[in-house]
């Protein structure tokens, strides 16, 4: 039998593209190797396996008595507080985000540098560490959930306004032109064309941000800004693994339920 039939025809070779691919691969490998240097992998505690096992068994043998005891320090009320922090924080940030979004959106009727500056400002807000912001607010309003709300409210602006501005950029000009053609003023354009077309995207993005905020709110407590994070870090420090287990279960359940609800609403919107 003719053996040439069994072989695939050779692929066409693009020498330049191949060279670039190899270069990228080499650089990546070099970065990874560099990353491995200087990190002390030997510093792991000898009891690591034991503690991991304890936490794992804590998840399966949770401290049920902590779930609700009416003291206001129990799991349910802490989770409820976390949810409220996320809700209020998202609400505040949605309001602050709107003007920022119109500033950063790149539309026809604007100089390019205006929107570019807006985008840079948003990038800086996004990169400002949330925890530092929380600590600054703790200085201003004292430790507690209020600091968490404010930190979330300001930090989320960076991401939310970016999503909003992308929604604005994706708007079509047709409806605006139509309203202007029949003699509508700028306010009419915003009222009857921009806002109605923008609303679904705004709500959907805000809901998405709420999902993220719930996760953020559950860690703000690590620095004393209210919510479930504080009892968790205390339980970790005092090695109450059963309590760690029940708190983790609570956080997971809360996030899953919120994700599910907001996913359903968003599906209906689009």
């Amino acid at each position, binding site marked *: 039998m003719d053996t040439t039939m069994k072989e695939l025809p050779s692929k066409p070779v693009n020498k330049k593209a191949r060279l670039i691919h190899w270069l990228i691969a080499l650089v990546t490998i070099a970065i990874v190797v560099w990353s491995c240097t200087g990190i002390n992998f030997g510093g792991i505690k000898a009891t*690591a396996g034991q*503690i991991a096992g304890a936490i794992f068994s804590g998840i399966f043998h949770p401290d049920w008595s902590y779930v609700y005891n009416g003291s206001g320090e129990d799991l349910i009320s802490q989770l409820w507080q976390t949810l409220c922090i996320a809700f209020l924080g998202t609400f505040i940030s949605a309001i602050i985000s709107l003007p920022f979004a119109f500033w950063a959106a790149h539309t026809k009727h604007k100089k390019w540098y205006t929107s570019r500056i807006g985008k840079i400002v948003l990038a800086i807000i996004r*990169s400002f560490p949330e925890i530092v912001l929380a600590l600054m607010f703790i200085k201003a309003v004292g430790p507690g959930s209020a600091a968490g709300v404010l930190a979330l409210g300001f930090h989320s602006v960076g991401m939310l306004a970016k999503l909003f501005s992308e929604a604005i950029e994706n708007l079509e000009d047709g409806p605006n032109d139509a309203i202007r053609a029949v003699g509508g003023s700028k306010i009419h354009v915003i009222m009857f064309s921009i806002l109605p077309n923008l609303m679904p995207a705004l709500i959907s993005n805000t809901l998405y941000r709420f999902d993220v905020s719930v996760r953020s709110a559950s860690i703000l407590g690590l620095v004393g800004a209210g919510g479930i994070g504080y009892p968790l870090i205390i339980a970790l420090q005092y090695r109450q693994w059963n309590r760690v287990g029940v708190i983790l279960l609570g956080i997971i359940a809360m996030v899953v339920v919120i994700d599910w609800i907001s996913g359903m609403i968003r599906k209906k919107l689009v």
Partner: protein
Amino acid sequence: MIDDSLTQLPKKRFKIINLIWLIVLIAGLFISINVTNTHISVLFENFSQFSDIFVQMANPDWSYFPTVIPLLLETIKMAVLGTIIGSALAFVYSLLIARNIIKNKLVTGVLRFIMNIIRTIPDLLLGAIFVAIVGIGPVAGILALSVFTFGVVVKLFYEAIETIDPGPIEALTAVGANKLQIICFAILPQVMTYFISYSLYAFEINVRASTVLGYIGAGGIGLYLQQTLQVFDYAKTGTIILVIIVVVVLIDYISSKSREALMK
């Protein structure tokens, strides 16, 4: 003369559901203001303190800059290693939960359930747990970032696998190829660019996350953040934050440009 009814806009039909949403929203607002005890007036009363910190941060202490560099590099190393380990795990796992590769619904269902649970845990929480397990240091951070990256990449990647063109898979099945051959020659060529793009995206998130992980003892520049904040040395904190912002924005820019180039 113009017909009067033409100058009016047509009335919108009143929807009861919208009213319910509005009530839920307002109720939620009042409840959460009550529960969290947030009163904007308090903020304005103490605003001078807040702005005071801000002013101090805005005058960074540049002599502190050289001290920050080693830990900054450690932060980036942590992000790189976390991304690599996490994406490698996600790569294998995605192949196991894509329904067009593994046909057994029970296997994919159970594995997906585990994935969804891992995805819910926030990054800093993972950091706190791993610090408790392996002790203070960058290893805890790398582990936390790996698990977090896994959660981010696996979801995006398995969805990409499930939306590929089934043609090549059928063609290879028809000529008698085994599972491994199908994966190598029909699936991977279609999704590899997505995988790299998602890993880069995870890397961007990891760089951000790794800068604060040190605050809870999981290695990296966050350690100095905690130290300077504890002694109220805001000028030094300002230096650190500026460095973090510059690095994060730079890496974001490079990474998003390369993702754009990839997807072209």
